[in-house]
């Protein structure tokens, strides 16, 4: 048995910061469902006999607060594995595993410069590249319009997309419009994009704006091939509000199951998730994909800690995190698995394209994987 600060015979401390307040409080659902999941694990007897102690602080989505809270986790609470952005360098300097950062920004999968940090979901650039490839295959002469959120997330997608289009990018992308989260609507942006005459629309937006964009595009009579980023592909919380009929034909990609998609109504994995929600997270919204997300992340972490056995050193945690082999969780889409390696810090790298048929998403094509 070997321990580093944060672990003992009795418990393993897992730290986390999450925006429970502030403009991004929607992400708070992730933290809450992770906490709920760990309660479930503890009810089942914990991991290798140790209880999980999940300590989560509110970072208000503000970088200074995140730094402070991360330091609190590491120095005050002596936790094992917190996650997250302004603290990137700090965590690596302190050699604290920063696992499964809840964002797809590419910088989280950089094993070389930041060996103590690992993302979780397919990174934004990978996803954007998949769309780009699909466009190049199906519509090589497309005129593309892009709507993106003017921040880290939006810019990351945009970069992946432009990289994916390659040298063609400058020519193919005929219009780009950005928006700020504080803006009430993106109607104006949609009109700008429409008037560019584009026939392909890449929609890099968070749920509220995605729904607005889908509706506005449809209402304005613009009928491009519509690619929607994975962040906002929930049927229940995006397409429905936008108007189901307005969303027909939208192409997106997926790796977790959408809790509002009828396809998974009787799926055992999602059933287990729903039971979990009912029992451990009754306040949570069962149409909110963030709750599936948190659940799945927590399950991944559970697996890593299981693999660690009795050697709960920070080094071993990182090592085990980097040696997940085709690990599967039932809330992931069929065919999607989690694999990592010493130089592969991107746990999920596969996704599948899907198209909305007016009732549900239909997967098409292969599971597309970037797995080396």
């Amino acid at each position: 048995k070997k321990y580093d600060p944060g672990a003992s015979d009795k418990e393993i401390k897992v730290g986390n910061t999450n925006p429970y307040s502030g403009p991004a409080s929607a992400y708070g659902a992730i933290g809450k469902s992770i906490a709920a999941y760990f309660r479930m694990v503890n009810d089942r007897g914990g991991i290798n006999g140790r209880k999980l102690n999940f300590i989560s602080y509110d970072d208000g989505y503000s970088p200074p607060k995140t730094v402070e809270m991360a330091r609190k986790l590491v120095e005050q609470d002596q936790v094992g594995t917190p996650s997250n952005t302004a603290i990137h360098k700090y965590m690596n300097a302190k050699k604290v595993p920063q696992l499964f950062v809840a964002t797809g920004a590419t910088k989280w999968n950089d094993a070389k410069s930041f060996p103590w940090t690992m993302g979780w979901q397919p990174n934004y650039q990978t996803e954007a590249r998949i769309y780009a490839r699909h466009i190049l295959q199906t519509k090589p002469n497309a005129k593309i319009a892009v709507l993106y959120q003017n921040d880290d997330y939006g810019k990351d997608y945009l970069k992946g997309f432009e990289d994916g289009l390659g040298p063609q990018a400058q020519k193919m992308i005929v219009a780009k419009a950005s928006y700020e989260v504080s803006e009430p609507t993106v109607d104006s942006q949609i009109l700008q994009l429409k008037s560019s005459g584009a026939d392909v629309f890449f929609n890099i937006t968070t749920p509220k704006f995605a729904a607005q964009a889908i509706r506005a595009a449809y209402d304005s009579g613009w009928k491009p091939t519509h690619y929607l980023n994975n962040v906002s592909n929930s049927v229940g919380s995006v397409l429905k509000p936008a108007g189901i009929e307005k969303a027909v034909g939208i192409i997106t990609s997926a790796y977790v199951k959408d809790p509002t998609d009828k396809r998974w109504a009787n799926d055992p994995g999602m059933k287990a998730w729903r039971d979990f929600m009912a029992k451990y997270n009754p306040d949570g919204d069962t149409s909110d994909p963030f709750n599936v997300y948190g659940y799945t992340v927590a399950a991944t972490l559970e697996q890593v800690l299981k693999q660690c056995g009795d050697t709960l050193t920070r080094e071993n945690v990182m090592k085990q995190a980097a040696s997940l082999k085709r690990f599967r969780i039932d809330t992931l889409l069929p065919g999607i698995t989690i694999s990592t390696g010493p130089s592969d810090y991107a746990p999920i790298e596969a996704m599948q394209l899907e198209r909305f048929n007016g009732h549900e998403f239909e997967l098409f094509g292969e599971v597309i994987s970037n797995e080396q």
Partner: protein
Amino acid sequence: MEAVLLQVLAGLATGGIYASLALALVMIYQATHLVNFAQGEMAMFATYIAWSLVNAGVGYWPAFLLTVLIAFVLGVLIERVVIRPVENAPVLAVVVVFIGLLVILNSVAGWIFTYTIKSFPSPFPPALGIRYMSPHQVGALLVTLIVLALLYLFFRFTPLGLAMRAAAQNPVSSRLVGIRVGWMLALGWGLAAAVGAVAGMMVAPIVYLDPNMMSGILLYAFAAALLGGIDSPGGAVVGGLVVGVLENLLGAFVIGNELKLVVALVLIVGVLLVRPSGFFGSVQVSRV
């Protein structure tokens, strides 16, 4: 040319959103001489009430009226319970209470209703739509104009409206002439909350209902209300529409989306430098 027209119309539609909340700000200003930063969150909360009613099977218009009523009562209650104790505190302390109220309402709404967006029904028949505007956008603008007319009449022609303005300006003298200042304040809060509720229900179908629905809009409404002149309901609406259109045109044709808000704000502040009490605000001279 058509692109410009489209942007102008879309700007009017969003401007109508700003205008409707700006009216609530004018209302509360007239009644208290303060701008309630929690006004947007109160409107958001009222909209959730409406949403719950509609979801429970109440028809749209009954739910609408009921919500306006509930919002009025809640507004009165908030004044009586939360604001009353700081009646005599310095202005900025009251502003801090508003901020407290804002974060409480926002947080509690997220807790009760979660952060996933909800669609909110629109009551307007498709016939209301014109070529480039959806029926709801047209309808919401009309409703805003109706609220404007009501507020104008209220302040201009009713003794109550006059008493309310008096109470906000000089509570001591108001009491001396028999105005129940406490009631005026509560009434002002109630009416502002009711106006806000209408705004929320008109806004929600456009931007979708979520706990942060109004936080962004409040800034625009604040700017709009001041641009028009904080004590002028008509000014609030004009201000709202101007801000909406201005922002769209700047974003689409002049400066780009990234900096359109910045430039719009610079222009608004620029206008205020020339007209320090807005387009239609009354100039309040004080002399020695």
